[in-house]
């Protein structure tokens, strides 16, 4: 099985779907000839033609609106927003239009679209290239929100998202594009090629939306994470010396509630980790859900380890980033309670 990094895996997913289904096309800023600033669409225009993979004006609202119109026609467009930080001009089109099209037309019109966008910090992107806006989308009825953490999942989830009949926000943790990152900025860089998660089949396969993955089984404490933070959680689990169960959520909506609840009922403890700011972050939803479903099994207060409630500061990126030190401290608090 070939070793792929996440960029190559995503490229492979698009390639597979462009080959399989003539209704699939992909577009966005710098996506066509150049292959995208992160190279995710590299070579696709050359292989599939100008009308299947093309550049757009810098107008995120227009990109998503065009995708919605194409979806309503019957195509399956995959729109790229160059950075999640630039998705806000398209926010109205996403939340007021794509998310509600099926509902408001009683199923008459649908928007089977995927909006891909790199998100998250860890590459010194400053506050305009590092945000994690997932909670803004999970709050909206009618959107699916997907966040992969490995190349294998990235490809399988993206294919599933393209085949899904609902609008999907596909957030790509750009810190993981080239290799996993455990939250220790001073450790040697790991590349996907050396990990089983970097083994990605060439052809078609899917990873179903709405199914979490128990990445590490354990009995002491459950860690809920996704995207880059999955790898921070794994590093923290090892370094804490505790018997942690680590769950990669993979899709935030629909959420695999059952896997989360079963795990927390077993361990009695729950630590939630995400990069996004703390207040009203997705961790708040997870925390409430665990409390509602597992209250009588909880042996410690639920912990949330998150970004601070500030924009992403360029010079203090590693202080902002919820690294293993903070996760381990939270795990210890959970165990001592």
């Amino acid at each position, binding site marked *: 099985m070939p070793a792929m990094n996440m960029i190559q895996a995503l490229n492979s997913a698009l390639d597979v779907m462009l080959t399989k289904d003539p209704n699939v096309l992909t577009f966005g800023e710098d996506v066509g000839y150049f292959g995208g600033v992160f190279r995710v669409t590299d070579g696709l225009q050359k292989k599939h033609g100008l009308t299947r993979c093309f550049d757009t004006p810098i107008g995120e609202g227009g990109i998503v*609106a065009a995708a919605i*119109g194409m979806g309503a026609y019957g195509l399956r467009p995959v729109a790229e927003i160059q950075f999640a930080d630039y998705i806000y001009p398209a926010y109205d089109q996403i939340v007021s239009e794509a998310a509600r099209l099926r509902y408001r037309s*009683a199923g008459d*019109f649908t928007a089977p679209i995927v909006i891909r966008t790199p998100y998250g910090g860890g590459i010194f992107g400053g506050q305009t290239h590092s945000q994690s806006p997932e909670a803004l989308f999970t709050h909206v009825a009618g959107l699916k929100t997907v966040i992969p953490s490995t190349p294998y999942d990235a490809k399988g989830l993206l294919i599933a998202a393209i085949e899904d009949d609902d609008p999907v926000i596909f957030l790509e943790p750009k810190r993981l594009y080239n290799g996993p990152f455990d939250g220790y900025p001073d450790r040697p860089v790991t590349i996907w090629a050396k990990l089983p998660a970097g083994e990605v089949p060439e052809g078609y396969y899917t990873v179903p939306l709405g199914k979490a993955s128990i990445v590490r089984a354990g009995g002491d404490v459950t860690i809920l994470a996704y995207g880059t933070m999955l790898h921070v959680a794994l590093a923290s689990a090892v370094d804490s010396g505790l018997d942690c169960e680590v769950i990669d959520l993979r899709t935030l909506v*629909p959420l695999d509630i*059952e896997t989360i609840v079963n795990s927390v009922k077993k361990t009695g403890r729950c630590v939630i980790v995400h990069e996004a700011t703390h207040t009203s972050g997705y961790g708040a939803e997870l925390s409430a859900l665990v409390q509602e479903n597992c209250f009588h099994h909880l042996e410690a207060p639920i912990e949330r380890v998150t970004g601070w409630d500030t924009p992403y500061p360029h010079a203090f990126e590693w202080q902002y980033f919820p690294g293993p030190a903070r996760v381990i401290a939270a795990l210890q608090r959970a165990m001592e309670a």
Partner: protein
Amino acid sequence: MKNRARLSLRVPTPPARPGDAPDFSAIKLEAAGEVRRPEIDARPHDVSDLAYALIRVLDDKGRAVGPWNPKLDAETLRRALKAMLLTRAYDDRMYRAQRQGKTSFYMKCTGEEAVAIAAAFALERDDMCFPSYRQQGLLIARGYPLLQMMNQVYSNAHDPLKGRQLPIMYSSKAYGFFTVSGNLGTQFPQAVGWAMASAYKGDDRIAASWIGDGTTAEGDFHHALNFASVYRAPVILNVVNNQWAISSFAGIAGGNESTFASRGIGYGLPALRVDGNDFLAVYAATAWAAERARSNLGATLIEHYTYRVEGHSTSDDPSRYRPINEAKLWPLGDPIERLKDHLIALGEWSEDRQQEAHREAVEQVKTANKEAEAVGTLGHGELPSLKTMFEDVFKDMPEHLRRQRQQMGV
């Protein structure tokens, strides 16, 4: 202090407010037949004068004159007139229903009937329309059942949209009528996307979209024009300049500085400015743009110059912000009267037949309304099933919604 004049801020104001005499003196009207009609393959740059002129076909005596006369047969004209009469009768009945508390909200298109009806006649039946909330005439002209429209207005058990939409926000894929959004302008670039898809698939269908003068201030308007231009999308982009965006006059949207049609010039799109109260002019402009789009020559921007005779909606009182008799003095007249006069001038119609057609329209509306009211009106009678509230959020109902539906006990 520097020796310079002090700056001052301008806020545009309309020529007349309540208590003033209506003042339309700033409006420059070309005579009917005066504006040239270029070939459909004209280069946008060479027809830029049309963005500032006003295409008119019907003159003051009801005669059709000049190069834009579409020369429609009398039967087509009579059908169009009846569709306009039906639209007005429908609006009047639904407006009264709102006043009687049978629905929450209504929006009339009085004075603007020609804009939608002429488009419906000029477009093909399977072209996709992305309307705003004042194009109910498209559905009526395409023969969509009045009963169904009323069921939607009443949110009753037979509401095709299951009680989810504001009353005037219809949707019907089968009739080429894209679901109306309350977020203004959003559908303009969506129509472009639909048209791009049609072109991508090698289809022969085109898209058309409508927004108001006020909505041209939204970013989506500019996205639509830019994308339509860049990808040469087969789409007709219509701006219905009815002079008022709720209480803000067209000058607040930027209409005092240039025409709305002229926005197309900077994007390299041909742009037509048309008398929106002249059925023949709207028909001709739409047909020109449609032929252009179908010939792979891309999009056209059309400004329909008209007047919103009634309030913005049933929640609005226009006497608070404009002269009470302004609508009556609108210099482009009433679209129904003008088409009627034309048919009479042709010897194909009479005042008596007009009265009869009006009565028939009212009767048709009355019959359908009785049937709709028998099913239910907002909050009374038979309602959509409550469990449908949780359907269509996603194609398949996810676990969390299934649980919430169970919590509700349905």
